């Protein structure tokens, strides 16, 4: 009975292609005491298409080699071939767990290039969008992290809340997931009737759910055992690796662009920046929970102080004119035609705008040579930078900690790979 030696599919493919330098051979473990485990790109713990090549000594990870790019779509290159407004739907697909916040960050960057400032109502609506997106994103982050350590029920509770944010998005933008709500210089439309009422109902229900999740997890012995002192990132490390968002604040660094570099009138609202002490998974979880509570606080303040007036800037040459005027007046028809075909006329220059997104600092660098399209656009995606610490963070942890750490870093591959 003869049998062919078994080869893993990717090894076999590499051998066939003549690439004999497979990853197993690259380890410095000549005795073969260590096992190389390929986790992903399709694995329940990797939330999408992250691939980790882990070198294991028993159950302990000795080396971690993240492999990204399975979701690369070339968004930055695509941006060079379209008008500024045409790129808005592509930003939905960056951090697809918080599309509203991406829309806002992108259009704010372009408006900075144009030198525009939104009227107060437009800014306030954008703040609502950002904080709603933050709640939605953190809900999923907390729930998925809990699911990765085994508490499946928490995930479904948080997803019920996310479902309600989908309903709000539908009411606000007409789409549940890919919102594409903002345009350069404003929003597609003003808040619909009854939106604020349903938003307030949502906020009340959401704070109850947050407390409920707190009760389930905050003092849960097993959860604490799985999260405390796991994936500890010191403040120095966090700054060195360029981490942002809750992952940075969990390590005890008070850095929040909404406070440090206020945009959209965030300086007018009263809110706290939660920070952690040890920088372990549990601190990051607590940070996210507290940030959701603060977001609710911010939205309540916005609702209380929502100014009237226009939501868009008053620049009839660069904004699409109202539909009834397009169909009745010659000049507006010409404007509509020009804006729709040539895009808004941006000045030459370069600009960087970073917004405090749920996952961290989402930055857009736009290099313009004038005209309707950017010469080059670079997206600084927080997930990409946050994930860079993995190879430093993973070694020494057990294989069961890998999902816990990945869950607590709360990344989105759509944004990481762009």
């Amino acid at each position, binding site marked *: 009975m003869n049998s062919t030696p*078994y080869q893993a599919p990717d090894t076999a493919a590499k051998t066939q292609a003549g690439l004999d330098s497979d990853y197993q051979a690259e380890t410095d473990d000549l005795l073969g005491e260590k096992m190389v485990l390929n986790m992903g790109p399709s694995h*329940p713990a990797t939330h999408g298409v992250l691939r980790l090549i882990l070198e294991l000594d028993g*159950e302990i990870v000795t080396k971690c080699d993240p492999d990204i790019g399975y979701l690369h779509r070339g968004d930055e290159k695509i941006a060079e071939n379209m008008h500024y407004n045409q790129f808005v739907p592509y930003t939905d697909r960056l951090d697809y767990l918080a599309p509203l916040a991406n829309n806002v960050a992108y259009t704010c960057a372009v408006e900075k290039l144009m030198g525009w400032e939104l009227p107060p109502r437009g800014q306030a609506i954008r703040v609502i969008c950002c904080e709603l997106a933050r709640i939605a994103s953190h809900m999923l982050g907390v729930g998925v992290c809990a699911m990765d350590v*085994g508490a499946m*029920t928490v995930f479904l509770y948080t997803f019920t809340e996310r479902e309600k944010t989908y309903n709000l998005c539908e009411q606000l933008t007409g789409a549940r997931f890919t919102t594409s709500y903002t345009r350069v210089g404003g929003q597609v439309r003003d808040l619909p009737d009854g939106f604020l009422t349903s938003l307030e109902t949502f906020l009340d229900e959401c704070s109850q759910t947050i407390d409920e999740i707190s009760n389930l997890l905050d003092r849960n012995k097993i959860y604490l055992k799985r999260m405390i002192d796991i994936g500890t990132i010191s403040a120095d490390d966090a700054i060195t690796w360029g981490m942002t968002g809750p992952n940075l604040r969990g390590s005890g660094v008070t850095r929040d662009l909404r406070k440090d570099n206020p945009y959209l009138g965030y300086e007018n609202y009263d809110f706290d920046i939660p920070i952690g002490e040890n920088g372990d998974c549990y601190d990051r979880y607590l940070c996210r929970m507290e940030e959701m509570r603060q977001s609710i606080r911010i939205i309540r303040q916005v609702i209380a102080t929502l100014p009237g007036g226009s939501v868009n800037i008053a620049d009839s040459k660069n904004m699409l004119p109202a539909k009834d005027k397009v169909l009745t007046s010659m000049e507006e028809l010409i404007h509509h035609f020009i804006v729709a075909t040539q895009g808004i006329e941006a000045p030459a220059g370069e600009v960087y705008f970073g917004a405090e997104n749920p996952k961290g600092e989402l930055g857009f660098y736009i290099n313009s040579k004038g005209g309707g399209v950017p010469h080059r656009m670079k997206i600084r995606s927080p997930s990409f930078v946050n994930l860079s610490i993995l190879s430093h963070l993973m070694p020494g942890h057990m*294989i069961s900690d890998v*999902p816990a750490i990945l869950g607590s870093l709360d990344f989105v591959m759509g944004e990481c790979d762009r």
Partner: protein
Amino acid sequence: MDPAILFLILTTAVKIVVFTFIFTLPIIAYSTYAERRVSSIIQDRVGPNRVGIPLTLFGAKKDIPFAGLLQPLADGLKAFLKEDLVPAHVRKFFFWIAPALTAAPAFLCICIIPFGSSITVFDQPVKLVIADIDAGPLFVFAIASLSVYGITFAGWASNNKYSFLGGVRSCAQMISYEISLGLSLIPVLMVFGQLNLSDIVHSQAENGWTLLPLWNEHGSVFDAAYWQNCTEQWLLMIPLTISFIIFTTSIFAETNRMPFDLPECETELVGGYHTEYSSMKFALFFLGEYAAMIVGSAIIVTLFFGGWSLGFGLDTAISNMALGGLLHILIFLTKVIAFVIFFIWVRWTVPRFRYDQLMKLGWVVFFELALVNIFITAGIIMLLN
């Protein structure tokens, strides 16, 4: 042939068929349904509520959904009809034998569980237990420890790193927790002074349940006659409660249920030891897991919660009834189902332990606690005598 032996063989055969195919297998099937329904209630979902009688297939206007009660049949049918894929890289013999090795021990344990007191057939009392042997719990441990082979073989034969990790974990976990499982039971056996499960249940029916001796043949806790006989039982409650906690937790570990479901934890090891299995082979693993859970519940009920006894001092009256033994079976099954629901409830409430934390809990906490517990029990028994 001697008519007595013929009678014994015939009644045993009937008992095997009835207990296995009429009681246990449907409970297993419906505990998968209960798992999904109870979890959906816990998680604010609906759960499977559609599979009923498909009358629309025969031209009627509406189906009869029965709240999805036919779901287990549909699941079983699906498992049978799916392609039984055996990957090219597995070790075939062990790959084939592993599911059977997992399911069989769990079913074997059913034979020593007393389902009810006894019924009279042709003027002869028939005990409602398949094998009334004097080594009850020892038999369970001997057989249940065999099921570790199934999981280890599955993990090893699959030739898959995730399955391998799951197999290694479960091997270590089940062996470790068997020790505290065995040790935690010793105080109970010391109190009863025997290993025959049906006699243990009988003495619980007379003297009050192990953990809730609120009533016995002398009356309930409110009667003076009760306290003349039963004061010492309440002192023994201390070690027996500790035993119960350790035993129940170890059963969770032994049956690979949450929070100890490390061998198959989906977020780390995808499917653990059954990653490469499909169709009926996978269903056998599934069946084995639920059978183990039901046998575990049955043993907990038998040892700690009075088995088939109803309590309230009514057991003698029920035994004297014509078919009182059958009523006892119903009481026993009700208790078992309550425990199965408890198992399900725990699974959907708590997170999962890490591998090293699990081993630490088993060897450092439970092992020592169970050991000390034996001495406490011995001390109390000595004090009382």
